[in-house]
């Protein structure tokens, strides 16, 4: 199956992919393809800057709606700088943990409340 190529630069319309709302457009495009069981290639060609806020929305959210297996099998990333790959890896690890253990955040709140007492 030939992958569907999603150009981040084109969808965002800028080489700075920074804001969460821009990430949402990427997320919607990937989701649509995965719902149709397509393989997706996300191209970061000409993307100069990324933030965790953008990647959380664009890619982190996928782990809420799709299994890790489906994402691993169906989503590829191309033309991404090494430093950005490290950021994306961090986003993905955080997203997996976030959806796997929804009580973790509550525990963290309890902990800081405990420190207050």
């Amino acid at each position, binding site marked *: 199956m030939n992958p569907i190529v999603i150009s981040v630069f084109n969808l965002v319309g800028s080489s700075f992919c920074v*804001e969460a709302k821009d990430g949402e457009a990427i997320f919607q495009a990937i989701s649509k393809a995965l719902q149709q069981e397509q393989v997706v290639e996300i191209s970061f060609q000409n993307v100069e800057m990324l933030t*965790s*806020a953008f990647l959380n929305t664009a890619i982190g959210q996928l782990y809420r709606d799709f299994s890790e297996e489906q994402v691993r099998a169906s989503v590829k*990333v191309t033309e991404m700088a090494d430093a950005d*790959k*490290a*950021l994306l890896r961090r986003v*993905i690890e955080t997203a997996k943990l976030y959806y796997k253990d929804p009580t973790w955040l509550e525990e963290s*709140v309890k902990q800081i409340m405990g420190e*207050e007492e």
Partner: protein
Amino acid sequence: MTSNCLSDLHSTASGFSQIAWLYDKNKGDFFEKMPVSFYVWFDANMAAPLGAVLDLLEDNLNDIVFDHISPNIKSILQKNDFLKHFGFDGCVDIYNTTIQYQKMKPDDGRYFHQYVAAQFLNRAELPTMSEGLRKKMTEAMLELFVNAQIHSETKHIYTCGQFFPKRHTIEFCIADTGIGFKEKFFRRFEKTISAVDAIRWAVQDRNTTKVGIPGGIGLALLSEFVKLNQGKLQIVSGDGYYQYDSQGEKTEKLTKPFPGTAVNVAFRTDDNSNYALVSETNAADLF
């Protein structure tokens, strides 16, 4: 009305306290002529939190008048365009050490990207830094803007920076007049904690006030970068002051609250760490 004196204003807890004091002292005034004077020294990046506070005071239709500005301070604040907002002319920065003062709306994201690219990323006269280091610094500035955009509910975002060649440091500050860390935590979890603890909580990896979507990486990454770079991170929000540097974490409760949030970062430009190498990751293993 007696003049509001700000003296020897550095990006320290005491510097932020002076700005918070200025706001607290005058916040109940309306339609007043409000004299402000600057003495001794002014770290140019502190123009961001000062601009935020002066704007709030102007919202009460007070007339801000700078009745004394030491010549060295006047020169700095004209070069970075801060004084242009208060009836002065700008002036040319022949040493090219300023990162301009800007006031933006939270939805001016594209404008902020251009500002960062022009003032920092593509600027030849800044000291030679590795591409990885310059990119990490830019990323940090963008993360801070997005944080203010998403969380603060502010009317405006204020930014300013300065390059200190002798200290091999670039400082960059971003300020807002929004709800602050403590109120954000309360609105999300319906629990009251101190402003200091709200900041301490927010800088920990994976802690986020977003609902239904992962987050909490931006400030954690910034702390990690500051550690590697041996720089400094300071967050002031309400009466909470948080600082992280090579000495570790330091917090204190300010006597008067800052009416919003200010985040100041100091980056070392003589950092030879190879940020590209430590980040090498195989694309096939990402998911």
